[in-house]
């Protein structure tokens, strides 16, 4: 059984990331549709900041792991290790040009930072992939914390 503090900590991290993804995804879709986004600008800025900070750390862990032939993710907590391995596994199972995660993480960071209209379709698609990854990864913690009947 995993420590409750590790479970809640990962649950909170995934919740923050999923919320950030949803804010940016809605923002991008409304921008493409030319509809004003009612989301407070500071929440959008905060969501970008959170995702960018996560991606920097995530990318470093992925590079380290690939260097070690996917054997270990030394610099992270077990939950983040699990997320890195899940990401690499999903990426490996599909051909390079297929979704998900066809986009490099460098490119994704640019898309988030630049916020330009022509980039929005790519950003929307990436946000959908990452949300799915985060939700799958959080599910074990959700069940452990709030359980099933």
């Amino acid at each position, binding site marked *: 059984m995993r420590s*409750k*503090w590790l479970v809640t900590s990962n649950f909170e991290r995934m919740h923050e990331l999923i919320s950030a993804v949803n804010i940016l995804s809605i923002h991008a879709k409304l921008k493409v549709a030319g509809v004003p986004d*009612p989301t407070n600008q500071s929440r959008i800025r905060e969501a970008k900041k959170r995702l960018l900070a996560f991606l920097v750390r995530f990318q470093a862990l992925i590079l380290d792991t690939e260097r070690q032939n996917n054997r270990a993710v030394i610099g992270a907590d077990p939950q983040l290790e699990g997320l890195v391995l899940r990401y690499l596994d999903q990426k490996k199972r599909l051909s390079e040009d297929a979704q998900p995660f066809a986009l490099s993480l460098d490119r994704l960071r640019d898309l988030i930072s630049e916020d330009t209209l022509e980039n929005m379709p790519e950003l929307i698609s990436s946000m959908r992939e990452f949300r799915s990854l985060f939700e799958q990864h959080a599910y074990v913690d959700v069940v452990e914390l709030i359980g099933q009947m």
Partner: protein
Amino acid sequence: MMRELLGRRNQALLHHVEVLLSTIRKSQIPNELEPYRAQVLLVCESLKASIDSNQEYLRIEQADILEDVLSNTQQITQIVRLLSSHLSIPIFRASLSDRLILAILRWLHEEHHQSRHFPPAFASGRCSIYLFGGLPVYLFPSIEQHGLLYQPLLFHEFGHLLYQIHQSEMNDLVAGLREEILDLLMPASQRNDRFAEEQTSKRQIIAETWYSWTQEIFCDAVGFKLGGTCFLYAFSSFLSTLAKGDFYRPPQDLNHSEHPVTWLRVRFLAERASEEGFEGAAETVRKEWRMIAEAMGVVEDYHGFYHESLAEVIINTVSDMLIEAAPRTPSQLEMAGGGWNPDSDSPIRLLNWAWQVHMNDSGRYPQWETEQIGTLLDYSGRNP
């Protein structure tokens, strides 16, 4: 259809949050729990704001954002359930007898600038802690809640909070330790066959397991740093179940386990106590554990998860983690126990005194403890 479904779900969530808000506001709780209640109310209010946002998004006739609103609704649902099943329990089940632990936790959190903004609460359960939304909830066993002797175990749990607050630096230090463990476990010569592959995989499992083990040993060290010998005695006494499992666990139980073998933890803790000048207490504890091990005929074997060659690097890493986390250093008077004045002394002196009285005059202890707890709670009541 989906829009209507999400509308109904958000309406239902809003109702749940309002019920939570109203019940939490009406609950009778000790004064020491008020800061926690205020923080829970803030989390509830922020959920209400998120539900309002969802309803605003739903009013926009834009079908492609429904998947995002669905995900937001899922997130809010999970947090409402977490509030209902975990975070609000310390408030709904609060009783006047909670005041002892709350007084000690409140003091502990106030003494550290890192934790001042995390109002603590507690509920009954196996010793542990969890943190969500700035709400640390300590779990503590029912019987031990009412006395002084095992309160120092809360300091170990506080170590987990410090770890989380300094997570990035701590993870880097632990990563360094795991790299060193991998190096130290590397054989001088390597074969290139299936056996070598198995060995590599085992080393990997050991390094992964040490992520949690390092944190536990660090939290033990935080406990000792904060409390001194009262923590050592509480820890040794509480964790000794007189079972063989305290001393030995088979390899399959060690793989990715959360806690090191208890005997190993006791050895690291006693080593730290010796280094800090508490050799007498350290030896008392070591002797007791050795005696039980001998009576059970236990032979020390950690199946490669621990070897004496790892001791130095583990001790040094934990010392670096202590520097980073900076738990409070008690005064010599606090460590010495022997008396206690609530107007001038911290609870640390009282907890050390409690173990002295308990060990020297256990017959007098219950009466003495009741009086001291009364004094502590009087003081806490006068200083909300």
